[in-house]
């Protein structure tokens, strides 16, 4: 070890550091670009494929406002809002999920596992079925419920600080309560059709329209950038609260801003399409696996979320004979991963 630390580092050493950083950054850029391209392809597929397959030219004309007999209704009124809502909800679930997982430093602590999505869903179902509300009021109730559940989970888990495991177990309990509330509310609604009921139980893009998609889109446009601006601070928080604070991050403020923004995104998306199972839970870990631990996971996780929703919706509609809601497909994908995660944590000697 040299005793002279004043010496400037050798240019070669600086160049090596810069090279390594550029290599990691370019890998990250490539992965993000590929993910974005896949999302675009899946979005176009959502517009083109279905019971009737329309040629790309027709689809493009409809999207640009032209009139094509048949396609104008199917693509313009049904598939376009469905695809847009799929992308918006996927991005929102991905962003919200990875934010929670980063802040609580536990992949199990995603909003769909700890009851936030279920709470929003139960409130939305209650508002629609029992109170007969619609539109903005439903979104408002869903957001209030999501915030309420987050506060409740936090308050119940708080004892000399919040321990991850306790918070997750309490959240799972609240999620179960919220889900049974949803079931109860839906059973009370006699004239309620089954597909609509499934939306609030597992999440579905069936029956998506602009009235539902636009509030979620606006929420993403407003809250998405708020969350992205916290990206580097969230990365610093991965090193622990003390280290982050020593690096000049205002820990509490960052946590509050990030959680409120994440809860808002989740709640708006849930109010539009229900609690699409496991998307926010899966998006972060999958993104981490593909981009590696370099830089912020927000953007990759958002894209993975959108891709999951679109692909699962296509599979649910086209591949299985019966038209399954998207949440059924993501649920089938997510459950094994949940088991894997718990087994792995258990093997590693964790307490959960």
């Amino acid at each position, binding site marked *: *070890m*040299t*005793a*002279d*630390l*004043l010496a*400037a*580092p*050798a240019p070669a*050493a*600086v160049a*090596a*550091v*810069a090279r*390594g*950083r550029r290599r*990691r950054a370019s890998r990250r850029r490539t992965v993000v670009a590929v993910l974005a391209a896949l999302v675009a392809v899946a979005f176009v597929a959502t517009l083109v494929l279905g019971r009737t397959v329309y040629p790309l030219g027709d689809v493009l004309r409809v999207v640009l406002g032209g009139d094509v007999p048949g396609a104008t209704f199917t693509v313009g009124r049904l598939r376009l809002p469905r695809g847009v809502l799929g992308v918006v909800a996927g991005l929102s679930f991905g962003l919200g999920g990875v934010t929670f997982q980063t802040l609580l*430093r536990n992949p199990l602590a995603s909003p769909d596992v700890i009851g936030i999505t279920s709470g929003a869903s139960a409130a939305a179902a209650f508002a629609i079925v029992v109170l007969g509300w619609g539109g903005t009021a439903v979104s408002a109730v869903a957001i209030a419920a999501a915030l309420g559940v987050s506060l409740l989970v936090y308050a119940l888990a708080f004892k000399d600080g919040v321990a991850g495991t306790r918070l997750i177990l309490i959240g799972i309990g609240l999620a179960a309560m919220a889900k049974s509330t949803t079931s109860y509310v839906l059973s009370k609604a006699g004239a309620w059709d089954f597909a609509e009921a499934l939306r609030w139980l597992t999440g579905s893009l069936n029956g998506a329209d602009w009235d539902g998609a636009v509030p979620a889109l606006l929420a993403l446009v407003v809250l998405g950038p708020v969350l992205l*601006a916290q990206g*580097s601070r969230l*990365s*610093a928080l*991965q*090193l*622990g609260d*003390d*280290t982050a*604070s*020593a*690096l*000049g*991050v*205002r820990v509490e403020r960052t946590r509050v801003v990030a959680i409120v923004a994440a809860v808002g995104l989740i709640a708006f998306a849930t109010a539009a399409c229900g609690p699409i199972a496991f998307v926010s839970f899966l998006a972060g870990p999958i993104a*981490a696996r593909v981009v*590696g*631990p*370099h830089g912020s996971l927000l953007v990759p996780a958002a894209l993975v979320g959108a891709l999951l929703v679109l692909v699962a919706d296509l599979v649910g509609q086209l591949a299985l004979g019966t038209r399954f809601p998207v949440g059924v497909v993501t649920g089938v994908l997510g459950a094994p991963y949940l088991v894997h995660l718990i087994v792995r944590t258990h093997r590693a000697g964790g307490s959960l």
Partner: protein
Amino acid sequence: MTDQHRLAAEALTLAYGERAVIEGLDLAVPPGRITAIVGANASGKSTLLRSMSRLLPPRSGQVVLDGRSVHRLPAKELARTLGLLPQSPLAPEGITVADLVGRGRHPHQGLFTRWSRDDDAAVAAALEATSTTPLADRPVDELSGGQRQRVWIAMALAQQTDLLLLDEPTTFLDVSHQIEVLDLLTDLNRSRGTTIVMVLHDLNLAARYADHLVALAGGTVHAAGDPADVLTEQCVRTVFGLDSRVVVDPTCGKPLMLPIGRHHMAPVAALHGDRGTARS
């Protein structure tokens, strides 16, 4: 790098809930020197260090950096002057050494400022200073305890602060790695003039490496100053409740504390036979 920052605690009282851990403590950190804080378990060493780096707001009194309270300074501005390595920082799964060290540049980067050549140079210098350049592309999870600690110190170095606070930087390290880390910190102090404040468990290593030794007891400073004046048998008895002998360390001339337990002691006569070398 040589303009000297002054860090001091003034009538500082720190508490967790109702329980006051530190009460009315005054402490001036000598600029450009190495200060070690020692004390019994739960004597508030780490609490004091956390408060000095803004992590814990004081119940009363203040921590002052260059005449301004650290709890009022903008977070990033403070982080460019004063760095802290906490006791158990967390490494995200799979992160590489170079990436982790690069995170130390956070206070130097704005929301829209790109990674600059200065950042690369700071990371390269930090890697070189801690001899971790060959590890740059390795995942942190795969490193040994000693290597990992050097990487964390590298991250703190990349922050390029004139003041560096470390909370037990040698815990969990075997003796050779403890010496390696303390030698590195000494190099840093001697060549860059970085002011170092560290909490240490090992009294003898603290006495050897510190220019200024601070012994905490009863929530306040029991003694502070040159290790030779601070580390006495009387002091060990008050601070740790332990009988001991303090002799001159033949390897460095600093005081060396030898604890006296209830077993394995030489006959009393032999014990007090060579009082000549003791400092009491």
